[in-house]
C-alpha cells in the first residue's frame, strides 16, 4: 500500500506539470490581455490610454512575450524561489492575495460542507429505509426544489425575503457595524445570522445530490442477499444497516469526495458573488475574466494539485471502505 501511495505521489509531479501548461495556455486563449481590460476600465474613468502607453505597460508586466515564455518565467520563479508571481489587478504578490481570502473561504466552505454531509447522509439513509413514505417524498421534493432553482436566483429571492421581513438583505458575512470589530458574542451571533442564507443556498444545492445518491445506493444494497442472511441471524435492523449497506453505499460518494477538496478552497463562486461573501471564488473568477495571468495561473495550479491529491485520497479511502478492493490491491 505504502509503495502504491509513493508511486502515485511521484506520478503527481509530471501530471501537475502537464496540467499547469495546459491551464496557462487556456487562460490566455481568450482574445485580449490584462492590459486591454485595464485600458477599457481606464476609459470608463475618462482616461484614454494610447497605444504607446499600453505598450509600455505590457513591457513592464512582461505581457509582450509569448505565452510559453511567460509560463517558463513564472514556473521558474515558483520552482527556484517559491515566488508565485504578481497579481496585475491587485498590484500585490499572488501569495498575499490568496492568503488574504483563505481564512474566510475555509470557514464558509467547511461550514456549508459539514452541513451538507452531516445532513444529507443520514437523510439519504432515512429516505431509503422508509422508501415511499411521506418523509421520503418530502425530502425528495425539498431537495429538488433546492437543486432545480439556480443558486443565484435562490439567493436573490432569500435576500429579498429577508429584506422585506427583517429589513436587512443579510449581505456579506457580517453586518456593516460589525466588520471592523473584534470577535465578540454579538458579532458571533451576527455571523450566524449571516450564514443562514449561504448555508441554505449552498446546502440545498448540493445536499440533493448526496441524498439521492445515498438513497439509491442504500436501496440497492438493502436488496442484496446478505441482508437476508443478516436478518436471519437475528441482528437488529439498525445494526445491520449501519454495518453493511451504508458502508457499501458510500462507494460512489467517496470516489468523488476527494474532488470536494477543490470546492473547499474556492467556495461556491457564483453563490459567493450573489451573496457578497469575501471568499476566494469571486476573486479568482475576476482574475480569470480580466486575464490576471499569474493570479489565475497560481490558483489553477493549486486547484490542480488539489484534484490530483483528491483523487489519490479517494482511491485510498475506497480501499479502506471496501474490503473487496483491498484484497485486490494487496498484489500491488
Amino acid at each position: 500500500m505504502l509503495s502504491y501511495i509513493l508511486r502515485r505521489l511521484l506520478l503527481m509531479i509530471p501530471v501537475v506539470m502537464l496540467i499547469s501548461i495546459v491551464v496557462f495556455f487556456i487562460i490566455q486563449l481568450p482574445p485580449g490581455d490584462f492590459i486591454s481590460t485595464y485600458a477599457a476600465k481606464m476609459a470608463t474613468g475618462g482616461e484614454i490610454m494610447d497605444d504607446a502607453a499600453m505598450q509600455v505597460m505590457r513591457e513592464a508586466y512582461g505581457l509582450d512575450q509569448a505565452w510559453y515564455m511567460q509560463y517558463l518565467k513564472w514556473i521558474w520563479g515558483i520552482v527556484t524561489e517559491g515566488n508565485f508571481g504578481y497579481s496585475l489587478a491587485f498590484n500585490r504578490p499572488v501569495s498575499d492575495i490568496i492568503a488574504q481570502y483563505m481564512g474566510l473561504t475555509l470557514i464558509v466552505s467547511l461550514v456549508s460542507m459539514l452541513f451538507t454531509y452531516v445532513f444529507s447522509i443520514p437523510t439519504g439513509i432515512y429516505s431509503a429505509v422508509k422508501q415511499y413514505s411521506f418523509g421520503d417524498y418530502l425530502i425528495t421534493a425539498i431537495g429538488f426544489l433546492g437543486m432545480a432553482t439556480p443558486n443565484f436566483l435562490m439567493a436573490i429571492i432569500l435576500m429579498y425575503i429577508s429584506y422585506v421581513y427583517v429589513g436587512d438583505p443579510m449581505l456579506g458575512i457580517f453586518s456593516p457595524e460589525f466588520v471592523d470589530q473584534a470577535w465578540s458574542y454579538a458579532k458571533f451571533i451576527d455571523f450566524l445570522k449571516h450564514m443562514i442564507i449561504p448555508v441554505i443556498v449552498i446546502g440545498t444545492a448540493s445536499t440533493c445530490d448526496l441524498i439521492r445518491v445515498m438513497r439509491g445506493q442504500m436501496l440497492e444494497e438493502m436488496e442484496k442477499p446478505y441482508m437476508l442472511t443478516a436478518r436471519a441471524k437475528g441482528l437488529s435492523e439498525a445494526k445491520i444497516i449501519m454495518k453493511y449497506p451504508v458502508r457499501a453505499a458510500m462507494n460512489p460518494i467517496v470516489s468523488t469526495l476527494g474532488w470536494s477538496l477543490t470546492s473547499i478552497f474556492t467556495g461556491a463562486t457564483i453563490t459567493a458573488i450573489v451573496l457578497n461573501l469575501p471568499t476566494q471564488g469571486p476573486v479568482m473568477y475576476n482574475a480569470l475574466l480580466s486575464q490576471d495571468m499569474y493570479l489565475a495561473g497560481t490558483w489553477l495550479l493549486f486547484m490542480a494539485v488539489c484534484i490530483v491529491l483528491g483523487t489519490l485520497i479517494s482511491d485510498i479511502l475506497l480501499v479502506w471502505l471496501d474490503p473487496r478492493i483491498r484484497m485486490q490491491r494487496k498484489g500491488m
Partner: protein
Amino acid sequence: MKNKIILMSLSLLITMSALTGCFAGNAKNTANTANTKTNTATATNTVQKSAGGFAEAPMLQELVKAGTIPAVEDRMPVKEDIMIEPTFESIGKYGGDWRNPWNGPDDKWGIEMITEEPLFRFKQDGTGVEPNVAKGFDVNADSTEYVIHLREGMKWSDGQPFTADDVIFYWEHMLIPETFGKALYDCYYSINPETGEKERAEITKVDDYAVKVVFKHPSVQFLERLAIDNKWFFAPAHYYKTILPEFIGEDKALEVAKEYGFNDTKTLGIWTGYYYWLYPQRPTLRPWVAKNDANSDRFVMERNPYFFKTDSEGQQLPYIDRIVLDKMQDPSHKLLGMLAGNIEVGQFDFKDFTVLKENEKKGNYRVLTWKSPAWSSTGVQLNQTTEDPKLRALFQDIRFREALSVAVDRKEVSEIITNGLGEPAQASVSEGLPGYQDGWNKQWVEYDKARAEKLLDEIGLKWDAQHKFRTFADGSDLSILIYQEKGEDDKFIELLRKYYHEAGIRTELKIVDSGTFFDLKYANKVPATIKSVSIVNVALRPDELVPLRVITPWFGHYGLYSSSGGKEGVKPEGDVAQILENWDKIKASTSKEEIAKFSDEIIKLHQKNQWIIGYTAPTPTLTVVKNNVKNVAPDLVSADEFRGIGVAHPEQFYIE
C-alpha cells in the same frame, strides 16, 4: 374609500406642518449657530470655536488635546486664504459615516470623483471653472501667460506645507512617462496657428505661492482643459523624494516598492502617482484620505485634518467623519443595500428607477434625478471606416443612416426601454448645453417604413430571393455585425434588430467583454455598436465627436490617422475632414467667442450627417440620498467632466 381620502388629507396636513416646522427650525439654526453656540452644543456634539474663530470636528479636538496634531488654525491656510465652501441648504454638523457602495479597487474612479480636489473645478451650473485648490489666477490679454496663485499656509494631509514647489515637482518629475507611464496631457500644448504644430508650455515658479504657465501661442481654454485633463496638477514633493528611484536609488526604491506590495519601482511610480488616493501613505489635499489598504473588504477614508475649506461659520470641512466603502461584488447588492438603508448616497442607472421609487418610503431615502449630458439614451454608431469596402460605402451614405433612423418605431422603444421617460428623439445636444440646435432632436424621428424602403431602394440595395433581406446592388450578402459590450442594453438591441430586420437589414450580434471590445476598436474591427455619446462641451472634451485618436466607434480609423500623424489609418475626407479643420481652429483660437463659433460648426456637421443615430432622449442619472443626509442639490448635471457626485461638493454633505 371616503375614509381613505380623509386619512390621506390628514397625513398630508401633518407632513406639511412638519415640513414647515422643519424649515422654520432650519432657518433659526443657521441664524443662530454663529452666536449661541451653546444651544446647539447641548443637542449635538460640542462644537467649540478656537481662538482664531474656527471650529473642528470632535474627533480632531481629541487629537489636538492629545497633542497629536496642531490646533485647527495652524492646520489650515492663513485666514484670508481659507476657502469658504457655500453650503447648499444649511450649516451642517459633524460626524457620521458615509457608507458608499463600490466594486473594490477596480472601481478607483467612483471614490476618486467624490473626494477630488482639483486646482480649478467646474462651477455647478457648468458655465466655466472656478479656483479650488488654487486661490486664483491672472492671465494676460492674449492668453499666453497664466499665473496661478496658491493658498498660503495650506498643508498636505500629513501636515507638510503645500507650495509652488509641489506643482513644479509634479511638472518636472511626475508628468513624465518614466514615473507616471503617461504622455503629457493635451492641455499643456498650444498650437502654432501657421504650422499647426503642438508646442509645449513652460512652467516656472514665481514664488512659494505662485506658478507661471507660459504658452508660445494663445491658449484660451487652458484652465478649463486643465480641469478636465489634469485635475491634480501637484504632488507632494517631500513624499516622493522618499520613494522614487531617482532620489533614493534603484535598490532602496525597490525595497519601498516591495513594502507597498509592488513588484518593481515602475509600477510603484505609476500607481502611487496615478491612483494616489488609494494609498494611505501618500499625502493628499482631499477632504477624506485613505486609512487602510484599498484591497481589503472594507476600505475606509477618514477626514483630512489639514483640509483647506470651512463653511461660512468657520467650521472646518468636511462634516462627515468617514467614507466607508464595503466591497460589493454584484450590482444587485448596491440596489439591495440602498433599499435597506445601508447606503448614504449612491448613484444608480435609470433602469432601477421604478424599484427605487416604489421603496422610497420604506428605505427612507429620496431619489434625485440629475440630468445627463448624453445625446440619447439609446443609439447606434456605424463605423465610417469599417474594413469591408462595400459596407463602408453604405455606412458613409447618408441615406442609409436616415433609413435606419426612420425604420424604428421610437415610441415603442421609448416605452419599453426608458419607461416612457426618454422621449422619441434623435441623438442631439440637449437644450441648455453648449451647441444646442433648435429642432435637431426631431430630425428623422418619424417612424416611416415606406420612407426607409424608398431610401434603401434609392441606394440600390436589392432583395434576396425570399424577399426577406436586402443585398448589395451586386446581389452579395449584406449583413451588419453589431458588437456589444457585455451586459449592456440587451433589450434595446433586441428591439433594434427586430426593426432592422423588418426593414430588410440583416444584423448579427456578438457580445464581448470590455477588454476585447477595446482591442477590436483599435483594430478597426467593430462595424457597428450600440452606444451613444455623452459630452458637455466639444471644445473641452473632443474625443467622442472629433476623430483625434481611436476611441469612439463611429469614426473608427479616422482617429488613427490623426493620432499617427497620417502614417496609419484612414484619411478623413469631406465633412469629417472639416470637423478636424474646425478643431484645429479651436486649438489656435484667441478668444472664447471664436471657440464657441468653431465648436458650433463641429456640432452642426454632426447634425447634418447624423453619424450617431439616436432613438430616444437621454434619461436622468439617479442620485439616491438617504433622508437624513443633507446639503445634496436635487438638480445637477451628472457628467464625467463634472466628476459625478463630486459636482455636489460632498465635503459639505452632512448627516442629521
